[in-house]
């Protein structure tokens, strides 16, 4: 969706799915959005602000909403067109490709206006040009590109409205690594039924998280270790300290013990990136020894 807009020079405004009514309205009205893409689950929220978001003419959604909500949205204004993403694609499919070239963006065009999560009043829009985005991809690739191999896989679950996640996904595209989409609610085995959680189903080797996520994982590991009794606890602590001080032989033994912990994240996790806010040194050190190398972005 994003790339579709980009290739015809249309600017994308991003809004977090967690925004409240006022925040959403603000992010639609301030840049005078002509249309909006959303998920079926979010349509009721959109319906509430739509009468006041007078510039919107097109609503595109994915998923399967109830017919009544679609009718309600159409009833707001005569000029509003509501389409499923598949219908929208079919319209495009039937059209010739010759017009596309003329609409391609230039490097100084605005690619996106990213609205913040709005934790301090109305969300603020950050204007980002194509050259801004491309330069970020270039610089990260220069600094860290050689760490990536073609067998790496990336699990995406953070909001794309967050610039960190967005840049990382662009980089994955550039270097040709698959992006697997997950949901915050279904990451672990415990949060799904009759199937595996996103992490163990996808077995990513690269993950990006904000500090809160890593803190949760750290607590999860410690809780499991503590529940295992004194013997297990001593073994675990010994393994961690052996690894941390890189004592020969013992460090390898430690690896063997910690393999169990690593299996919980699919067993392939190799690089973790933390960003958005600073991660406490203690947590970074703990996870780097027990689980995976954590880089701060």
């Amino acid at each position, binding site marked *: 969706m*994003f*790339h*579709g807009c980009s*290739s*015809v*020079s*249309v*600017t*994308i*405004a*991003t*809004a977090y799915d967690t925004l409240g009514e006022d925040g*959403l309205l603000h992010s639609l009205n301030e840049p*005078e*959005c*002509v*249309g*909006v*893409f*959303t*998920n079926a689950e979010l349509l009721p929220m959109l319906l509430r602000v739509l009468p006041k978001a007078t510039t919107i003419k*097109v609503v595109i959604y*994915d998923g399967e909403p109830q017919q009544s909500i679609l009718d309600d949205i159409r009833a707001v204004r005569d000029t509003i067109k509501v389409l499923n993403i598949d219908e929208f*694609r079919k319209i*495009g*499919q039937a*059209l010739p*490709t010759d017009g*596309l070239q003329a*609409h*391609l963006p*230039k*490097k100084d*065009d605005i*690619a996106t*206006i990213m609205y913040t999560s709005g934790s301090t009043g109305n969300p603020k829009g950050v204007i980002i040009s*194509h050259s801004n985005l491309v330069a970020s991809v*270039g610089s990260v*690739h*220069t600094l860290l590109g*050689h*760490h990536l191999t073609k067998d790496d896989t990336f699990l995406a*679950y953070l909001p*794309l409205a967050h610039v960190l996640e967005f840049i990382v996904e662009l980089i994955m*595209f*550039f270097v*040709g690594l*698959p*992006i*697997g*989409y997950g949901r915050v609610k*279904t990451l672990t085995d415990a949060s*799904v039924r009759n*199937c595996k959680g*996103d992490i163990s*189903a*996808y077995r990513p*080797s690269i993950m990006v998280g904000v500090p809160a996520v890593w803190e949760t994982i750290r607590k999860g590991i410690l809780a499991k270790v503590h529940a295992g009794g004194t013997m297990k606890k001593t073994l675990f602590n010994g393994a961690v300290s052996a690894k941390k001080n890189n004592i020969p032989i013992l460090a390898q033994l430690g690896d063997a013990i910690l*393999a169990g912990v690593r299996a919980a994240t699919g067993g392939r996790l190799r*690089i973790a990136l933390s960003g958005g806010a600073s991660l406490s040194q203690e947590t970074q050190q703990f996870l780097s020894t027990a689980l995976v190398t954590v880089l701060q972005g």
Partner: protein
Amino acid sequence: MTKVSTNKPGFYGVGSVEFSPSAGPGEGPVRRIAITKDDLVTQPLEGIETVYDIVSYAARTYGNRNAIGWRDVVKVVEEEKEVKKIIDGKETVEKKKWKFFELSDYKYMNYIDVQTAVSEISRAFISFGLSKGDVFSVYAQTRYGV
């Protein structure tokens, strides 16, 4: 587990170097990482200037390798749990419903599929009269459709 070991030892060289001297009292000099001291990186490759260029580059270079994976919701499983709550000093037991998803295995789209989808969406946008200067909002969860 594969270890993260750099295949370019000494890649960062001396670390950071002074780029320009301090501009005045109370300010330190500007420093830059040594490997890009003379030239800031503004693009990953010659010819890539926009996000669109990245999509076409990926389709050209990686073709039918997996680009994007996702899982469909097979069904929503509801479970009831009893939650103890203390209301006005009295302990009451409330029944709460929790929703859990049952998901399919990962399904994949390759780089050419992505480019096709992008092209279709672009043409549809043009047919709706959208062009440069217009703003389109994306208010959605992180998903492959976005």
